């Protein structure tokens, strides 16, 4: 079993008072709690802080922790033989357990020994990043979770759970899916925990998702925007032909109904092609001549409203 320095996790001395431990926890929880923090790695950091606090805030667990001695963080160690007798009411295998498992199942104190309450299994939440194509078609992901549970002989172990989970089409950014009973095993008749998958969509080179709608930039040449055209546009379901009306302005959203991501029950989001008017960076002499002729012949003034608006302002 690897040693964890719970005092270092909270940034306090080994002799810190209960009040100091609580203050340190509150400060760190405020900073790293996954519901309120957007810092990178906040969730992992909070788990470490919460695990340390769960043990150190309870005087009996803290005493049990202190009796494990002081080791370097990450160093392999074994709880002393008398420690097992004094604090653990279940046999356990120190090799495949995490220190947190030991304290989560610790029944310190003779008064509580034997009082095995039924406890629900732990819920787990994991982040799953999928591509827009996977959200469109649905997908399967491989899950490999390592959870503490009791074996038939009542010994606590870390047990690997490997299974595939089907993500139905229609999952999108920010959605959560629940796998009932796939979390930690319940203890002494308690219900099994659930597994929650928090879905995020990976950035895509063409599409941007908002709910079940997709947005795509549609570059047009100036003459295509003026004269109108029909262009082939990629969508997750395949290429479609989109009619661009004459006089299409930059920034206009051309809607392709039901070409976005499918919705969970029925229906489908839309795909919006956002017009961008793009000019060539290199042009030949004949093109330049044509643009010059256009500029001489055209009566179009794109800034006509400047004069009007400026007049209003004075």
């Amino acid at each position: 079993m690897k040693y964890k320095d719970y005092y270092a996790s909270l940034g306090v001395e080994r002799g810190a008072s209960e009040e100091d431990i609580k203050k340190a926890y509150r400060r760190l929880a405020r900073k790293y709690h996954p519901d309120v923090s957007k810092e990178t790695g906040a969730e992992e950091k909070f788990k470490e802080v919460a695990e340390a606090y769960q043990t150190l805030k309870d005087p009996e667990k803290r005493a049990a922790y202190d009796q494990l001695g002081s080791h370097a963080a990450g160093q392999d160690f074994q709880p002393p033989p008398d420690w097992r007798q004094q604090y653990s009411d279940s046999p356990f295998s120190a090799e495949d357990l995490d220190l947190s498992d030991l304290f989560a199942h610790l029944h310190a104190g003779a008064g509580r020994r034997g009082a095995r309450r039924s406890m629900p299994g732990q819920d787990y939440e994991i982040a799953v990043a999928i591509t827009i194509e996977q959200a469109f078609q649905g997908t399967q992901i491989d899950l490999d979770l390592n959870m503490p549970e009791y074996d038939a002989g009542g010994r606590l172990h870390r047990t690997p759970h490997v299974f595939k989970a089907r993500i139905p089409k229609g999952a999108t950014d920010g959605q959560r899916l629940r796998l009932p009973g796939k979390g930690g095993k319940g203890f002494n008749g308690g219900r099994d925990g659930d597994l929650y998958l928090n879905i995020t969509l990976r950035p895509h080179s063409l599409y941007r998702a908002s709910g079940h709608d997709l947005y795509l930039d549609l570059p047009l040449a100036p003459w295509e925007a003026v004269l109108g055209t029909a262009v082939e546009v990629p969508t997750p379901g395949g290429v479609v032909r989109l009619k661009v009306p004459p006089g299409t302005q930059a920034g206009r959203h051309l809607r392709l109904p039901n070409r976005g991501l499918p919705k969970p029950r029925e229906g489908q989001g839309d795909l919006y092609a956002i017009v961008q008017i793009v000019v060539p960076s290199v042009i030949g002499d004949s093109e330049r001549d044509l643009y010059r002729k256009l500029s001489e012949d055209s009566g179009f003034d794109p800034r006509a409203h400047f004069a009007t608006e400026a007049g209003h302002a004075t």
Partner: protein
Amino acid sequence: MQLEVTEVLWFEQHELSLPELADLSGLPLALAEELLDCGALAPLQLRRARTDLRFGSAALRTARAAGRLRSDFELDVQALVLALGLLERVADLEAQLRELRAQQPQPIL
């Protein structure tokens, strides 16, 4: 090593009663009732008897956040309602931001 199985996921179709919601989020039932009374937990349909109220995945998400915040910050009901209200506003603003970002054309280099 357990056998590999394929799971079909529960996906927003399930509706939960208040006791089920409390059980899944680790909230005492009395506290879940208080959160309901304060409007922090919203049922799918209003104007039903309390025993008939059903809750969807949005309420489960809120209730689970309430369960975490309560145990991790030792919040009382008032603080919990305030925190949940602010988190809901943050989530709304983030959704608006996502939508605006999605609509924002990317510069062509």
